[in-house]
């Protein structure tokens, strides 16, 4: 197994220094090249889980291994793409994409060529000399994707990457990332709270629920790509997930009665 998550829990101290459990005994195996969506309402710990795998935070108990090695620190073998892009505003598109290559002992011309290729891949060739503040949100996120791909990572983590985009741009970006995933065969772990987005993108959807954060169910999406958002199979899975969340509502009502 490529990524193994064994009995992982995570606690944070709250303002009174009491431990609050954000994630409780998470078990999960992810294969290389898989597209995984972590889906759930806010507060279910999906971003925390992502940060743990990415090595930005440490587990309280349990262990996470990538390729057999403990995931304890960030590395350019796995790159995170954030909702607010994380582009460096003082660098042009070209220079932003070159960022990760600068620490990799590559010659200047090679950096330029590689960055150029990926800028072209995300369709921003004529914007290479622009600065982030001159681009729309969707274009900025494309730059972030190009920058991540340029260092040829094994895993790409995406933390609600399209959350700040308008609906149309969002759909375009979903198509785009789906295409890129098919071309490049990276393992992608994608956090979202948008059910349709998850069904469109994922091989497997991990439905998470809060208090404490845990994986409620794992839903496979055995639909060939490119997926049709209006196809009955698509809608069936979408409805199934809706039901998952619906059930939680019922539980809550019973509890209050």
């Amino acid at each position, binding site marked *: 197994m490529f990524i193994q998550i064994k009995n992982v829990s995570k606690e944070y101290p709250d303002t009174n220094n009491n431990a609050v459990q954000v994630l409780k005994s998470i078990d999960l195996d992810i294969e290389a090249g898989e597209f995984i969506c972590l889906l759930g309402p806010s507060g279910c710990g999906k971003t925390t889980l992502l940060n743990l795998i990415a090595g930005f935070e440490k587990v309280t108990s349990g262990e996470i291994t990538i390729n057999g090695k403990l995931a304890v620190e*960030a*590395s350019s073998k796995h790159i995170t793409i954030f909702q607010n892009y994380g582009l460096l*505003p003082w660098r042009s598109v070209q220079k932003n994409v070159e*960022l990760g290559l600068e620490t990799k002992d590559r010659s200047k011309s090679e950096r330029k060529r590689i960055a150029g290729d990926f800028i072209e891949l995300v369709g921003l060739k004529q914007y290479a000399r622009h600065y*982030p*503040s001159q681009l729309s949100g969707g274009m900025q996120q494309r730059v972030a994707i190009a920058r991540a791909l340029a260092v040829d990572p094994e895993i790409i983590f995406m933390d609600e990457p399209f959350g700040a985009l308008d609906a149309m741009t969002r759909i375009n970006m979903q198509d785009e990332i789906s295409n890129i995933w098919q071309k490049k065969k990276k393992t992608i772990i994608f956090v979202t709270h948008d059910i349709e987005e998850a069904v469109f993108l994922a091989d497997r959807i991990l439905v998470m629920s809060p208090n404490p954060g845990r994986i409620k169910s794992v839903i496979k999406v055995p639909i060939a790509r490119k997926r049709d958002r209006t196809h009955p199979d698509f809608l069936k899975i979408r409805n199934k997930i809706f039901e998952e969340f619906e059930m939680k509502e019922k539980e809550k009502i019973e509890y209050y009665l």
Partner: protein
Amino acid sequence: MTKIKNLIYVAAGLAILVILWEAVVLTGRYEASLLPSPLDVLKAAVQLIKNGTLFSDIKVSLYRFIIGYSSAVTLAVILGLVLGRLTRTWKIIDPIVQVLRPVSPIAWFPFIVLWFGIGDMPAIVIIFIAAFYPVLLSTISAVKKVDEIYLKVARDFGIRKTNLLTRIIFPASFPYIANGLHIALGSAWVFLVAGEMVGAQSGLGYLIIDARNSLRSDMVLAGIIFIGISGLLLDRAIRFFEKRVEKRWGIVSREGI
């Protein structure tokens, strides 16, 4: 359109000032040596320009200013970048800085003369002291304010140590540092004149002392006006630079400052 309007305001303000001034002079209650008339001051100014004194004094003052200011900025920014990251070391140094900072650079004058002699050095050192603290403190607070996401991106791409400082932290904090440079420029210019009044035989500050010694109050006022104008021009120049930085960094500039 607004530019022309603003210009009218400026002209109106100046006109009112000159009219009031002339009116007070016309009452005849003050001798010309106590309050020279606007026309006398204008004549003195023309004389200073024509005989070349003004030009050579400005040149000397600017030379001292640039040396003192730029060396203070260089040292303070480098120290600030490092100390901003070394939280514990800064906690040790901070109290010392807090005690020294409110001391007027002029208070150091006896030591400055002993250590650096006379000539250009006292003025340069005083400018250095005046510019150093504001730049140091604004750099440190700028480093502490650097958005977490840039640090995450840097970790992801394996950017560490010196590279982290030069490629990420310095540029990320640069807009705030530029703001500190702006503030420091103003206070340093104030002390340039003070520095030249006590330790120099040339420069704009000396121009005033010299005029006073020959009881030329019209020339004193002309000198004051030149100091004000050159300070204003310097301020505009650095403000222009600051705006450019903010624009490039994508910071929405605050109006009316």
